[in-house]
């Protein structure tokens, strides 16, 4: 009940900040366009817009970033349905049935269902966030240095899940990030480490690194290829689905949203996994599973509701524990620190008013997404015709100017370009960039708290197994580190069995 009062207080505070609401709407619109553009992801959108929030008050800046995030996750569905080109990885699941519906002349209904399902899934996830976050933050407030260290190790173990094709390469990227995170002042003694005499390196400028890894690297990659063959978007027709059709989807949407929230709250599992799991469950529960893949509206509703349900879920560990669940929330964590806010349990204790104003704003963002989404569907096809020869240079110029704006430093631009080049080559050779960012955030937290815990226990390593929460987190970390290894081993066995079957 207290949360409800705080949320209502948040709405009242938000009503007095029309600029914040306007920026939230702008963020949503920009996010939809970025999400719809093939090759541009929500993470990239959040990274590019990060410097814009520098001069803004916390509520305005963070709502704009949240708007880009929500809009970006939803926007991917537009091109997936109209052109079978998923704007985001999560939208690849939407494309399976969405494009089939377009071929049947039901593009408008598919897009309308996707928009409404995204809104419902996302809004539900924020409501869960409102009620769950204070509970989790309350527990996390009891943490001392040893628990925080174990939490950081758990956060780092997510690297195994986001490693992509090769676990070894993901771990190499993660440990490179950890090594980079040691550049700067030693957390206990204050000695400069690996700074090479540069004052700018006394702390790792991780926002330029993020802009470089996610935005500049993608722009460099886009330069390699020419403009994609433009397809003409189909005629939309009716957009809002009739009630008789939509009421049959409500249960699918609610179930998918629940799955999305749960999957999103597991660090390392993102919107793409949520979309596929939700799709699979919708197919399993369906009375007509044979229609899935041939243009089933429930498939579109499940994917979009699941993917957007992930957004609130992913923000749960980020806001309450300071652990980013995926690359986008890692960049959002940067946005919070840029505003002088430290994500974690103390955020709810020291800035509860601000946090609940943000939650209220996030619900407004989803409402804006519904209105902007439904209103812009007929025009968005035209925006998508923007040639890459204008878009990519604009992104690079934004990276340069935006990075400079953070500290008015040319050195930061150098860091951003170096990170961009590193990210470009990493992607080229299948090294995922996300573990570097995760390590940059979690590395200093792990080191500082481990050494603090060691001092508190008079140099004894007992705290690793005598404190129950610490031990639990470390065990979970080990499990989450080895689970992907076990899963890969199982997949390999299954594949080799399948390969040997025809021979037999």
């Amino acid at each position: 009940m207290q949360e409800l009062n705080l949320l209502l207080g948040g709405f009242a505070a938000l009503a007095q900040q029309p600029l914040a609401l306007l920026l939230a709407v702008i963020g949503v619109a920009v996010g939809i366009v970025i999400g719809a553009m093939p090759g541009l992801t929500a993470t990239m959108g959040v990274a590019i817009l990060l410097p814009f929030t520098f001069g803004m008050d916390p509520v305005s800046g963070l709502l704009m970033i949240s708007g880009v995030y929500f809009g970006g996750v939803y926007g991917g569905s537009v091109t997936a349905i109209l052109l079978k080109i998923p704007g985001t990885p999560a939208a690849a699941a939407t494309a399976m049935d969405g494009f089939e519906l377009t071929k049947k002349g039901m593009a408008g209904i598919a897009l309308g269902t996707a928009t409404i399902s995204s809104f419902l899934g996302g809004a539900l996830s924020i409501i869960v966030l409102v009620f769950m976050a204070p509970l989790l933050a309350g527990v996390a407030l009891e943490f001392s240095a040893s628990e925080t260290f174990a939490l950081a190790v758990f956060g780092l173990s997510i690297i195994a899940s986001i490693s992509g094709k090769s676990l070894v390469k993901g771990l190499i990227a993660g440990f490179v990030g950890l090594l980079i995170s040691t550049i700067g002042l030693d957390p206990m003694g204050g000695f400069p480490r690996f700074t090479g005499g540069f004052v700018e390196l006394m702390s790792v400028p991780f926002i330029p690194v993020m802009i470089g890894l996610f935005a500049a690297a993608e722009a460099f990659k886009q330069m390699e290829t020419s403009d994609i063959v433009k397809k003409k978007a189909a005629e939309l027709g009716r957009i809002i689905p009739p009630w008789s059709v939509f009421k049959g989807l409500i249960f699918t949407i609610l179930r998918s949203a629940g799955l999305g929230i749960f999957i999103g709250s597991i660090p390392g599992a993102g919107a793409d996994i949520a979309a596929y799991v939700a799709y699979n469950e919708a197919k399993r529960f369906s009375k007509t599973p044979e229609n899935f893949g041939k243009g089933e509206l429930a498939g579109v509703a499940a994917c979009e509701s699941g993917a957007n349900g992930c957004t609130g879920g992913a923000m749960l560990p980020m806001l309450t524990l300071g652990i980013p669940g995926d690359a986008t929330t890692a960049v959002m964590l940067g946005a919070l620190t840029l505003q002088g806010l430290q994500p974690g349990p103390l955020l709810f204790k020291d800035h509860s008013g601000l946090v609940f104003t943000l939650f209220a704003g996030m619900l407004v963002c989803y409402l804006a997404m519904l209105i902007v989404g439904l209103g812009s569907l007929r025009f968005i096809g035209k925006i998508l015709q923007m040639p890459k020869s204008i878009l990519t240079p604009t992104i690079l110029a934004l990276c340069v100017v935006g990075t400079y704006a953070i500290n008015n430093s040319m050195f930061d631009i150098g860091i951003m370009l170096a990170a961009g080049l590193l990210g470009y080559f990493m992607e080229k050779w299948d090294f995922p960039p996300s573990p570097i960012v995760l390590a940059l955030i979690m590395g200093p937290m792990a080191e500082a708290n481990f050494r603090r815990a060691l001092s508190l226990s008079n140099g004894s390593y007992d705290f690793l197994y005598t404190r129950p929460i610490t031990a639990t987190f470390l065990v979970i970390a080990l499990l989450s580190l080895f689970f992907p290894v076990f899963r890969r081993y199982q997949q390999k066995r299954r594949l080799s069995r399948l390969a040997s079957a025809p021979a037999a």
Partner: protein
Amino acid sequence: MLPGDSGQFRRHSQVSQRSPAGSLPEPAGVVLPIREGKNMTTSQASSPTEPTSGRWNMDIVIAGIVSTVAVAAIFFSRKFPTTGLTTDIGSARFPQIYAGALLVLCAMLVARHVLQGRPKPQAVPEGQVVNVEVRNYRKTFFGVVSSVICLAAMPYLGYGLVTASYLSFLMWLMGMRHKAWNPVLAISIAAVLYVTFSVGLNVPLPIGSLFE
């Protein structure tokens, strides 16, 4: 002749068998934008396994580079002073642990290459449709070089001149070569960014030491 537009692209062909649409859990049959290019038959596509073998060689090169960095980190961290606290492990321990882990992981990467060897070329039935990626690395190279020049020139020439030139060059590089629209768009985008950051967000963008 413009760089990268002479048709002398480094051809980077990649064979991907088309999967049937609608199968779970992979996004099969979905045409991803980066996989652009033209559809060819296998008889038209050249050397389908070329990038795979190149990638394997690069794994060893990368493992070598990362190992060198790790060894350097261990070497330099030995000189880090201690905090003086008996309960503290010192400022060098964590970088050394990370560097040690990197050495082990690089060894694993190389070992995997040695044990598995080069992957065998995929047998693609004659006449099957494959996607051939045509990638232009020169454009990326010139894009990176121009970004570095932009970084070096901005303190001297200032934001306006450098950003407009940078945008104009990048647009020209990527194919926007209209004599009127290229500069107009470059100047417009630079102006919009200037107004947003300098006027809207109060960021003092560099004027340039030559103009101060």
